[in-house]
């Protein structure tokens, strides 16, 4: 059962990757990257049960967290062209 789930997740990862590489807009890519991150979280969780050691779900937690922060960073960069400052519209051409 878990094996099938893993297979499904891997397949989804491949599809999402294709979308990410193909683009064409930056938002496609952001979405793809984010979905990919979510899928890895799923994969870790599934593997935890497959191998009989679900106590490593901590790692999945880290993935989620990192994915969230990276997503904010990427979207902020894409919209405002910087990370640290206040929110202003980016001054150079859109991606």
């Amino acid at each position, binding site marked *: 059962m878990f094996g099938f789930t*893993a297979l499904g997740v*891997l397949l989804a*990862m*491949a599809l999402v*990757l294709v979308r*990410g*590489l193909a*683009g064409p807009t*930056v938002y496609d*890519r*952001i979405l793809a*990257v984010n979905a*990919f*991150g979510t899928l*890895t979280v799923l*994969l*870790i969780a599934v*593997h935890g049960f497959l191998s009989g050691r679900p*106590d*490593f779900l*901590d*790692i999945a*937690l*880290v*993935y989620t*967290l*990192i*994915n*969230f*922060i*990276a997503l*904010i*960073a*990427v979207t*902020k*960069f*894409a919209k405002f*062209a*910087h*990370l*640290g*400052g*206040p*929110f*202003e519209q980016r*001054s*150079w*051409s859109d*991606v």
Partner: protein
Amino acid sequence: MINISLLMIMVATALGLVWLRNLLAVVMFSGIFSLTAASLWVVLGAVDVAFTEASVGAGIATVLGLASLALTRTEHEKRTRVFHLPALIVVLVTGAALIYGTLDMPGWGDPDAPIHTHVAPRYIEDSLAETGVPNIVTSVLASYRGFDTLGETTVIFTAGVGVLVLLGRGRRYPVANPRVAAGGGPGRAPAAPGSEGAAVPGDSGEMRFKAILRVGGKLLIPPILLFAFYTQAHGELGPGGGFQAGVIFASAFILYALLFGVPMARAVAPASVLRGTLALGVLIYAGVGIAGVLLGGNYLDYSVLAHDPVHGQELGIILIELGVGITVASAMMTVFFVFAGQDPQQVD
């Protein structure tokens, strides 16, 4: 099966990276590459490494990459040749040499391979009795090969100081005054470049539209910090430890800085404090070693720290992990603040 699929995904990502020209996409796909590698390592049983790679490779590296793209203000690489013949030849020769070298290797997962029969068995069999720590990776990292880890902490300290040297006095956003910022009026114009404290960044009128993100982010920060402490304390029992905890701790501040601007985050963790803690962690680690010498053991011998050698080991491991955590957290925060704290508009 999962191994091969993940490896294939990594190959596809890497090939994509050769081909991609948009640097933002390069940074994002590098993150995907790291995440996939980390997943592969979970499958291969290297959970501590996966933990680290996920937080460093996919998190810190992505954020740093974005910050430097913002500062270099370059979206696309100039198209250089995808096929670069001399490079291709060098790479093919190197690859062929490596494949030649693999021919005499023990097979994948072979339990009788020399690396599983020579040094490693002692760690697996005796480390719990000798150090009292069930996570073998932690006990080897912190005690048996503790000197490597001291070196590793020094490397991250070097990076922190190095980034300070390189970018430390670049064009900063004006320093925030947290009290003024808290009461900042709506619709205020963004800070003029170079004018110290003229206007308050991070609180322009557009903030209202980011309310969901800001409230949500603020709610998340305490659990993230708590999770960092958990990772720090739980490192002996499960995956985790000082390094991972440091990165997660720093990521809470990074999140805060992303939502409210670096000047606000700097007000919480001022540069002078970070510089102190950056140094403090290394000193704690090296100092524990010196304490071992003074108490009559060898350098980094924790057994002499308490009456019972195993207790001494546990104490020593906790202390040095604390040192690692402090230095890593300060280094990551310093590096991020220095990168993201530069105002990209002030150059040219």
